[in-house]
């Protein structure tokens, strides 16, 4: 799914300080005194790059137990109701409290979760056999009724569940035994069983959720099954998770996990440096160097499912000519962007999806998927010629930029620089961070904009999560691209369960999208995790979104 502007929705992986302009916007309605403006001017911007980085499969395993550890997250979850848990902060916390039918592993593969077996007797049926004797935090024992109820909440329109769209092909969810639930599909859907490893597949206690009523998710317990249960939630400050002693699986190594909400990126880095927080995911790229050289702990990078792209939003202007899109892609200084914008921790890519997204395929399929794509070696002369040929020399284009993160602001600048070299007049349109989020949700906000930087990640280990965006009428298909053959390909991929066969179809789809340059791929962005010397054990991959990672965190050897 996409990463949205931090704090509101998820569109840029690394949030950071925003300009005073937006803070003032809130205040301006009330007071407009010049003195006030002088009194609180905005933050200065600056960045540094770190150079080389290596991907770690994991962090060293924990040696023993600890009483508690503190984790920095960049925002407070508005609610911890699993049906609306669709953003980094809430998923990072919730993954340790609420478990799903399936489980995503640190290696980004799928394994049984609360269902000990998932079977697929026919293409339109999924049968989940539940684990026996699983205890909820409210003391009750899990049955099929809880599963039917929990999944039902995702499709209840009154709930406005963020995961509702993943149930679009579901015809019914029924109890077919005390510990068995059968899902009937309207048509074969290879994505649905994968989403059962995310918050879409969470099972909570029916009685517990009903007892909490409209307060579910904001106060009281969550009535889930995970290794931690919800403890004290100090609103606006922090939320504590307490080890759940009745957990069915491997007991958590830490008695407590405390999540502190630290919105300001430099404050977050400071908290890590001073030991007020023991670790954190989503480290601001401009802090990589500081944390690496601090001697306080270690910064690890892991496989992610995030790519940084330029999203083409307007095909009615010069970008409607594929030669212009191609020229722009050819002239873009990707490695310069990775150095400056991603703190050197990233790789230049010609693929919209990360290598890790293809993990379910065979060696050959993965090779086909990634090697068939057009090369992205910079070639200014050729790009210039293409622009000339398209008759676009001197034409004006607009790219949106915002100070929400360097992945956005520096990429916009790189696009502008590329344009300047090949005879395009590219203007930057600076958008306040809150309005930047609106680019995704409001067509009016995209008026007069031809493209914008977009960091996107998959919620499951399947490239289809991203490739679906180019289907006719898809939510993120801002350019209004429509190709019947492509749409049919997407539908076909959705209906094929065999991973290798499906990924082969997806490889063709990705090739098509890459040739058409519906988005211009720029870089792969690995996940970053910082751990101080006291703790270890957290996974390095993006699995922390849905895997109970905090249970693995313990004392460092």
């Amino acid at each position, binding site marked *: *799914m996409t990463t949205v502007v931090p*704090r*509101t*929705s*998820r*569109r840029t992986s690394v949030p950071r*300080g925003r300009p*005073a302009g937006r803070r*003032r916007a*809130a*205040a301006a*309605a*009330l007071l407009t*005194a010049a*003195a*006030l403006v*002088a*009194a*609180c*001017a*905005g*933050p200065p911007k600056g960045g540094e790059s770190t150079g080389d980085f290596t991907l770690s499969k994991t962090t060293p395993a924990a040696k023993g137990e600890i009483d508690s550890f503190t984790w920095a997250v960049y*925002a*407070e979850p*508005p*609610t911890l109701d699993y049906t*609306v848990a*669709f*953003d980094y902060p809430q998923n990072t916390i919730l993954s340790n409290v609420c478990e799903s039918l399936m489980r995503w592993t640190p290696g980004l593969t799928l394994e049984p979760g609360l269902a000990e077996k998932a079977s697929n007797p026919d293409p339109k049926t999924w049968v989940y056999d539940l684990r026996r004797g699983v205890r909820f935090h409210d003391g009750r024992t899990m049955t099929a009724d809880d599963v039917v109820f929990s999944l039902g909440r995702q499709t209840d*329109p009154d709930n*406005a569940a*963020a995961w*509702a*769209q993943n149930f679009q092909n579901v015809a019914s969810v029924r109890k077919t035994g005390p510990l068995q639930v059968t899902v009937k599909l309207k048509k074969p859907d290879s994505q649905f069983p994968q989403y059962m490893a995310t918050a879409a597949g969470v099972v909570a206690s029916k009685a517990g959720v009903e007892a909490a009523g*409209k*307060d579910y998710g*904001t*106060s009281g317990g969550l009535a889930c099954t995970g290794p931690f249960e919800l403890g004290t939630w100090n*609103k*606006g400050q*922090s939320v504590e998770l307490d080890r759940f002693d009745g957990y069915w699986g491997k007991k958590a190594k830490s008695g407590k996990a405390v999540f502190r909400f630290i*919105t*300001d990126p*430099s*404050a*977050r880095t*400071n*908290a890590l440096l*001073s030991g*007020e927080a023991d670790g954190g995911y989503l480290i601001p790229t401009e802090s990589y160097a500081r944390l690496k050289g601090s001697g306080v702990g270690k910064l690890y990078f892991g496989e992610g499912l995030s790519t940084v792209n330029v999203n083409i939003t307007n095909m009615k202007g010069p970008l409607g000519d594929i030669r212009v899109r191609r020229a722009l892609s050819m002239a873009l200084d990707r490695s310069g962007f990775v150095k400056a914008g991603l703190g050197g921790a990233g790789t230049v890519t010609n693929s919209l999806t990360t290598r890790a997204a293809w993990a379910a395929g065979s060696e050959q399929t993965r090779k086909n998927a990634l090697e068939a794509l057009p090369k992205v070696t910079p070639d200014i002369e050729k790009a210039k010629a293409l622009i000339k040929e398209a008759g676009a020399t001197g034409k004006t284009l607009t790219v949106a930029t915002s100070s929400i993160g360097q992945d956005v602001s520096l990429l916009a600048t790189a696009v502008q620089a590329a344009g300047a070299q090949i005879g395009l007049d590219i203007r930057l349109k600076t958008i306040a961070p*809150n*309005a930047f*989020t*609106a680019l995704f*949700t*409001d067509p*009016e*906000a995209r008026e007069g904009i031809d493209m914008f930087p977009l960091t996107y990640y998959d919620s499951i280990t399947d490239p289809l999560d991203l490739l679906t965006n180019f289907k006719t009428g*898809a939510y*993120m298909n801002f350019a209004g691209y429509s190709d019947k053959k492509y749409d049919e390909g997407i539908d076909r991929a959705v209906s094929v369960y065999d991973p290798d066969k499906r990924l082969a179809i997806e490889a063709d789809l990705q090739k098509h999208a890459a040739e058409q340059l519906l988005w211009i791929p720029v870089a792969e962005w690995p996940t970053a995790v910082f751990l101080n010397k006291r703790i270890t054990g957290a996974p390095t991959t993006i699995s922390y979104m849905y895997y109970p990672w905090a249970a693995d965190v313990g004392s460092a050897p």
Partner: protein
Amino acid sequence: MNFVRFAVRRAAEMAATLLVASFVVFGAMYLAPGSPASFLLSGRSASPEALAAINAQYHLDEPFLVRYLTWLGDMVQGDFGRSITYRTDVSRLLADRLPTTLLLIAMALVVVVVIGLVLGWVSAVRGGATDSAVLVTTTFAVGTPSFVAAVLLQALFAVKLGWFPSGGAGEGFLDKLWHLTLPSIALALYLIGMLARVTRSAMLEALDSEHVTVARSRGVPERQVIRRHVFRNSLGTVLTTGGLIVSTLLVCTILVETAFSIGGIGQLLELSTTTKDFPTVQAISLIIVALFMIVNLIVDLVLPLVDPRITLGSKGSSA
């Protein structure tokens, strides 16, 4: 002007101001791009039924005026509504966060008043090198935006020296004081400079006045002259900046709270504005406007007491 008439007039003015402010804020939110429903869904596509359900639940599909009046009606009955983002009652959101913000502002206010007055006083009375030193210091203070001050204080006292936490609001009263020390200084810095300068110039003006010369010639001790005549005469001028001081504190707290991740209502306002959480933004805006007006009212009530030349209601506060 008698007190009853004054009170009635001020109450009416306040109600009108709150009404206009609420309408303006509501309108501004309404016109800004993006819809709360789309933020609720985290920018994912949703079925038309789900969107319709949200829109109905929060009255997002009704015309502007209807929505505004509905909100106003609930508000008058003491119902702040339910936060769209947090899915909980706004009154509860505020109850959780308001104490922290008020404590932060109170601490900053104490720092501003004590240090600002002392610096201004010393500067005016001593003159010479002291005066120059204060002028240089206040120039620096006035020129340092609270955000920059926050970053500098964090870097020095939290990260380098480790004397204070780098953020958060703490738990329990003493822990809270310790956590809010740096933020309150960051918040106060600019205002210390401003107040010191206002105090200094007001006292210098008073020092030059005739009755000070008269008092001195009568042999009244210098300390008494300064306290009774000079300082007391300047107090009116100093007090009238009260409104400006408090409004600056209220606005800058948004920034400082974010910088230190304090999680008070300043930070909540910023987040709610981002996600177009109408009920929350409306409630916080009104609280800020109300606080601002209450401070001005207090200033107007106190002024006649410290400065007999001013009568009740004869002049509004200058902020």
